[in-house]
């Protein structure tokens, strides 16, 4: 047993004394204040930062959405100009997907993965911080247009060529968009590589892959999808950037370029992307449903396997976004069938969630409400997806409000509902306080009603011929009533979201204090204090079953023995090894920001300064080494630090 424990945690691989960097300034050790946050390598702090940025951008994207809806409340409206409207939906889509849902998922990856696998941090803590700051850099560049005379980009979130070319978008807004997206891609790939290694390599002893919590599985698949899908859009963006900056003609029509290629490359990324958005939410749901049904997940292996299947098939269906581009009958048929195939593994998940409820003892707490809402809404969204997959029918639906309805059902009813469930569910773990239950439930019902009121009628609008990206519409099209209804409901939805986050904010200060395990949870994170200490686990847990914490709770003696053994082994190793903080990931992020800013504004000096800062930061980062210090926990639970060896 002791041997097994030795393998569990990341032992200091370089046992020599931590290198004093001597590189301009000393390695930071402050854990609080601005410096603490900027230099942190603690996955929990990084997760919280991700969440804060993501929620901020969610509200920004939501306000953009409300402006869109306001413009559409009555026909022939000139409340917002056509160009501004174009900027609004472009930035709304981009913001919601890349700056809200993805980073919120990344936040949960950070917060939960190490806790669920019984690790003290991710495999590469500084790389993790780097991902965060690069994300911030990309997000900032992406939104900079709002504050520049050129305005934000108005090309649609999938930026179809040749609208993004210099001819049709001569100002820098498209450069900001392309560069911002490119930088976000770097962040995603770096973060995902980290999570892949963490999940595969840092599991606690006894935690075999088939005992992994489902959320962690989904995070693993998502990370794989990211590292495999992002390169496609990276290349596509490189091509656009080359066209704009160096006069190539990848998408320059008059010189033989093929705008259709952009569509292919974008959707080669874009479709896996939608599963990148939905797989983590499926993970949250697979954690929350068992907890509140007080029963293990039904068909664990099948749920996991179907996640892999979804991810894999997801790479072979991209052209279903291009059914109307004249692919030819054979290709259309092939992509149509492949798309339908995805319904099978997705359905399997729905059935297993129902199976989980079946025979359980269901408690209607707020996270559970959101989770059930998720199943219903995602199912509806999935069904409209299946309607799209029938290519001839899609010829009438593509680029109409029917598509808008479909993807808001999967993105809000699906991804966002699950995220709201997750925030409510794990909040007590990370802040030691419960989110107010009553207001949580109220927010759920307001959101639920507002959401369906906003988006269900959009199906009819679409079938009634209303194209998407419509700045204004004429009053003779029979779209007036439903549009007004949608807009009013969108405000209801906005109020619901507001109530939700207001409640969360209030609970942060005033919420009821709770202990380790307020929900009677099943996975490892519920076994440690709330909020978790810096080192997560005083003793690395030994996993003896799926739903490890549930098993431990019901086998107390065994768990006690394991803990004691673990503590002994670790003490023999010189204490708990913790990674050192570092400035360099942050500096590298700034370098990335400056380089991106300079490049997208055609200002080489800034570009080279940025690249210089980036390279130097990475080199110093390598030179300073992982470093590290030790924590020692005495019998009374007091923690002392020791530096050096």
């Amino acid at each position, binding site marked *: 047993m002791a041997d097994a424990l*030795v*393998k*569990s*945690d*990341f*032992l200091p*691989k*370089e*046992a*020599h004394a931590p*290198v*004093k960097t*001597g*590189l301009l300034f000393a390695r930071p050790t402050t854990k609080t204040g601005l410096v603490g946050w900027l230099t942190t390598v603690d996955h929990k702090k990084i997760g919280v930062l991700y969440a804060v940025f993501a929620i901020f951008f969610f509200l920004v994207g939501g306000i953009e959405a409300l402006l869109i809806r306001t413009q559409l409340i009555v026909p022939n409206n000139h409340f917002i100009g056509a160009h501004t409207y174009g900027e609004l939906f472009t930035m709304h889509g981009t913001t919601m997907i890349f700056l809200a849902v993805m980073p919120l998922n990344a936040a949960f990856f950070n917060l939960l993965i190490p806790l669920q696998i019984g690790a003290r941090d991710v*495999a*590469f803590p500084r790389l993790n911080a780097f991902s965060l700051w690069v994300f911030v850099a990309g997000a900032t560049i992406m939104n900079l247009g709002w504050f520049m005379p050129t305005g934000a980009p108005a090309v649609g979130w999938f930026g179809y060529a040749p609208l993004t070319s210099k001819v049709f978008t001569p100002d820098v807004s498209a450069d900001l968009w392309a560069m911002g997206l490119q930088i976000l891609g770097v962040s995603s*790939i770096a973060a995902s*590589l*980290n999570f*892949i*290694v963490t999940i*595969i*390599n*840092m*599991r606690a002893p006894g*935690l075999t892959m088939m005992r992994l919590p489902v959320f962690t599985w989904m995070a693993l698949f998502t990370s794989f999808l990211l*590292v*495999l*899908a*992002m*390169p*496609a859009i*990276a*290349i*596509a963006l*490189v*091509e656009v950037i*080359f066209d704009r900056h*160096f*006069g*190539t*003609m*990848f998408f320059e029509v008059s*010189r*033989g*370029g*093929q705008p259709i*290629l952009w569509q292919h*490359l974008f959707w*080669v990324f874009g479709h896996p992307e939608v599963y990148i958005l939905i797989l983590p939410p499926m993970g949250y749901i697979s954690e929350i449903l068992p907890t509140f049904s007080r029963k293990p997940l039904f068909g664990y292996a099948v749920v996991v396997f179907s996640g892999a299947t979804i991810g894999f098939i997801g790479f072979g269906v991209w052209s279903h976004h291009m059914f109307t581009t004249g692919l030819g009958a054979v290709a259309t048929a092939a992509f149509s069938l492949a798309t339908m195939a995805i319904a099978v593994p997705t359905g399997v998940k729905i059935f297993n969630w129902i199976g989980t409820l079946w025979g359980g003892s269901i408690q209607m707490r707020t996270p559970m409400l959101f989770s059930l809402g998720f199943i219903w809404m995602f199912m509806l969204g999935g069904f409209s997806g299946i309607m799209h997959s029938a290519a001839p029918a899609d010829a009438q639906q593509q680029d109409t409000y029917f598509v808008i309805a479909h993807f808001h059902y999967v993105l809000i009813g699906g991804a966002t509902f699950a995220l709201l469930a997750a925030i409510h569910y794990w909040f007590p773990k990370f802040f030691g306080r419960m989110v107010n239950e009553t207001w949580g439930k109220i927010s759920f019902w307001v959101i639920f009603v507002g959401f369906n009121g906003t988006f269900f009628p959009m199906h009819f609008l679409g079938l009634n011929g209303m194209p998407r990206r419509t700045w204004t519409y004429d009053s003779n099209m029979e779209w007036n009533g439903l549009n007004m209804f949608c807009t009013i409901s969108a405000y209801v939805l906005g109020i619901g979201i507001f109530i939700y986050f207001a409640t969360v904010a209030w609970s942060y200060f005033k919420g009821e204090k709770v202990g380790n395990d307020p929900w009677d949870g099943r996975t490892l994170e519920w076994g440690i204090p709330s909020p978790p200490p810096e080192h997560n686990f005083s003793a690395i847990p030994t996993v003896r079953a799926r739903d490890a914490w549930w098993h431990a709770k019901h086998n107390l003696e065994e768990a006690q023995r394991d803990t004691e053994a673990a503590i002994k082994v670790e003490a023999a190793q010189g204490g708990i090894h913790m990674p050192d903080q570092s400035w360099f990931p942050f500096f590298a992020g700034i370098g990335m920001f400056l380089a991106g800013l300079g490049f997208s504004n055609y200002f080489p000096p800034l570009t080279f300064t940025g690249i210089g800062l980036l390279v130097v930061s990475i*080199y110093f980062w*390598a*030179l300073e080494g992982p470093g590290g210090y030790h924590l020692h926990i005495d019998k009374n639970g007091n923690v002392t630090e020791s530096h050096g060896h």
Partner: protein
Amino acid sequence: MSSHAAGQIDHHHDPTTSTGIPNKKLLLWAFLASDCMFFGTLISTHLVYRQNPPPGTLGPREVFSLELTSFSTFILLMSSLMMALAVSAIQRGNLRAMRSSLLTTIFFGLIFLWCQVYEFNHFVHEKHLTITGDLFGMTFFTLTGTHGTHVAIGVLWLVLMYIRSFKPAHPHGYSWVARGGAHLLFFVVAIVSVMNAVYHLYALIQEGQAATYFSTLGQSAWDLARWTSGGETATLYLPHSLVLAAAAVSLASLVGFARPRGDVDFTETNAIDVESMGLYWHFVDIVWIVIFTVVYLLEYVG
């Protein structure tokens, strides 16, 4: 090293991870999987445009030089071999062997890069194939240029690793950082100046004027002497000789840096770092295997 002191190190098994695969190695393999998609889409772009050439564009056969490309392919293969040997050496704890293998890898990598620089220059100036000229030039330069960038990053990584292997085991103060910086600087100067000199020499050889090169050198040395003594200058020859002087100085310093200087902090435990770097380097090689076949050889079929 305490945990490994007891025995030899198993380089394919890391007992501190769940799977036994070292973290860095896993990271690298996942990254390479990602890079497969990267080059997959890049090569797709090239082939897609290649399939539908606009009328009147240059045929690649008229542009390519198969001799040069075959040569650089061979060179890259050899660098891969040297890289494998370097990894093998450090795994056996043989630092000196590793260093010389690394240097050879760097050397071969530079030859490859040099060939590419030469090729690009040749294409642009003699064949009038440019990145903005036509579709073929555009995708060709983008694809091979991206590969070349990968090689260049690889060379930089190799150089940094090589320098890193001189870090003293018991550093006193931070002088080693400064020394490392200087070491790197000389490396860069050496690379640039030697590549430059060889480039000019090669160009003159091509024109059958190798002899002039050397005579100009003699001339410029003479000029230099005159210039330093305040006489008339003939700046025409000066750049060449300055480049050569820089090459000589930096190469000599590199030899100086390579002199053994006590214990260093680079041992068998660092094998994983070298190995990860090697994975990257070999990957660059296999990408070239594909490019060589798909972009170059296929053009000659039929």
